[in-house]
């Protein structure tokens, strides 16, 4: 409960902070004055909206009105937040985006699928072949079918995989 409140304060604060940034940075937008309304006016309005709603969210939190977490079919309302899983998924996504340019899309994609499925509880020896096949199929479809080529990386020059 206390943790939820701290998070709510932080998110409300973030919204307000983005608002402040919007307002401050708006002053640096070069505006010619021959226009009735230049490129600054709308940013000012957006900044004010963000600051006001961010502060309002903080006040609502202080008065005990917390936001209701979203419901979804696969969400179990009775379990605590599993931060480790979230961190692992973010790490897998970061690894994916770093690896694309290093070893190519197929490997980075297979790792993303495998890593995510494994993190979420799939058996590793079942997830691994699915990940590899899925990545290769997408690579082939893009290279041959759509004519858009994803970086082949270590498969460079291999027929079908390198568009």
């Amino acid at each position: 409960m206390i943790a939820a409140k701290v998070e709510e304060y932080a998110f409300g604060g973030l919204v307000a902070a983005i608002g402040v940034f919007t307002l401050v940075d708006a002053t640096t937008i070069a505006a010619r004055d021959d226009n009735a309304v230049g490129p600054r006016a709308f940013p000012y309005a957006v900044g004010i909206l963000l600051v006001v709603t961010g502060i309002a969210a903080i006040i609502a939190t202080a008065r005990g009105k917390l936001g209701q977490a979203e419901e979804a079919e696969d969400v179990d309302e009775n379990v605590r937040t599993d931060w480790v899983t979230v961190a692992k998924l973010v790490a897998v996504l970061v690894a994916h985006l770093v690896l694309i340019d290093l070893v190519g899309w197929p490997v980075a994609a297979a790792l993303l699928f495998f890593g995510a499925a494994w993190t979420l509880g799939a058996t590793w020896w079942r997830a691994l072949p699915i990940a590899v096949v899925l990545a290769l199929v997408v690579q082939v479809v893009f290279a041959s079918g759509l004519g858009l080529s994803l970086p082949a990386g270590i498969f460079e020059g291999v027929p079908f995989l390198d568009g």
Partner: protein
Amino acid sequence: MDSITALLEGFATAAQPEFLLYALLGVTLGTAVGVLPGIGPAMTVALLLPLTYTLEPTAALIIFAGIYYGGMYGGSTTSILLNTPGESASIVTALEGNKMAKAGRGAAALATAAIGSFVAGTIATVLLTLLAPTIADVAVQLGPADYVALMVVAFTTVAALLGSSPVRGLASLGLGLFIGLIGTDMLSGQQRYTLGVATLADGIDVVVVAVGVFAVGEALYVASRLRHGPIEVIPVGGKWMTREFWARSWKPWLRGTFIGFPIGTVPAGGADVSTFLSYGAEKKLSKRPEEFGKGAIEGVAGPEAANNAAAAGVLVPLLTLGLPTTATAAVIVAAFQSYGIQPGPLLFTNNSAMVWALIASLYIGNVMLLVLNLPLVKIWVKVLQIPRPYLYAGILLFAALGTYAVNFVVDDLIVLLVIGVIGFFMRRHGYPVAPLVVGLILGPMAEEQVRRTLQISEGDLTALVASPFAATAYGVLVVLLAVAVVLRLRRKKNTEVTV
């Protein structure tokens, strides 16, 4: 009469084998993502936006409209058969449908949902056909100030009136408007909020934002509290082709349609509102109110019809005014824009062939959806059972792929991750994500119209409210807000009394 000829020509286009295949692809995909938890039509359309580079506009829009309609059908299967309903638009269906399925009347619940969706979808599409050209004719005369008024109404209703927390809805809208500001200002050529980063100079692509909040945000959120263990799907039981089935279903279907369509049309509510209203109406009119809460078929038939009619209704402001009132509609506007087409009153004169082919494909898509969701419902039950680790791993993979495929730069993936994490926290704290997407797409349009208005009026702010249409729109908005406040206060009082 003109529009009937145009519609027939539209059918001639849409009935070509090629376009029939696109429609089938769209409705099949739409049903699949409607059935599957964790993905919805908005995200699917966003992921498929890069298709617009390779397909002609009519084909792409037929696919997107199919996904939009299909998502509405698919959602009901999930809420009837899955023990753990979610998805707001079909939550009312779950109330009665789930009980019916558990009592061994799953077949009847699924059938009334599918046929009800078809009846409502078809009637609503007829209404769309009749209304849209007329509205477009009127809308041609609207000036920039009138558009500003319409957008303000849309912003306020989507952000403040629909969710449980107006403050959080408006904050979400603000975040979307802010993201929309990033990039180069169209009118003055000035860079805004790009922090000198070259990737940001062209702005953040709609695909990246939509996929970020919907796919990555949702996947992270579900993963944080994933329901483990087997997926409990209720077996489909019972017969449905009974006299009682038809006798109890047809009136709720029609009532649902006429509740849903207007609500979808005026920018004052998504599908959720219409389903709640329809459910309330059926409960009140029923001769057996005691059955409600225990599996009353009227409680499935009405809301499902309302749901689909509202979905068709949303297309009226979308096509005639260029005004999206749901997240999916907003992404469809982005699809139009990527072809350099601005949905709005001129659509019916400038792109008449395309619009009518699109509308004709809606009729055809509805028939396809009836077949896909009535005799073939068993296939979707199988789809529903996909093990969740693979489902969410797949969602993340295609989210990353769709984002990367926009520009083939890794920087977009960084933006995707940041927006995904924001989407995750928004879900945890009751910030709705739809206003963010609507704000992102409508924001730049609204800014352009405000500036055009004030350029014409030479800075006179009263020009924004001077036209009769704009003044009326703001007046209606004030009334709507007042009603909402009264309802909220009354609800509070009631809960205090009952507690």
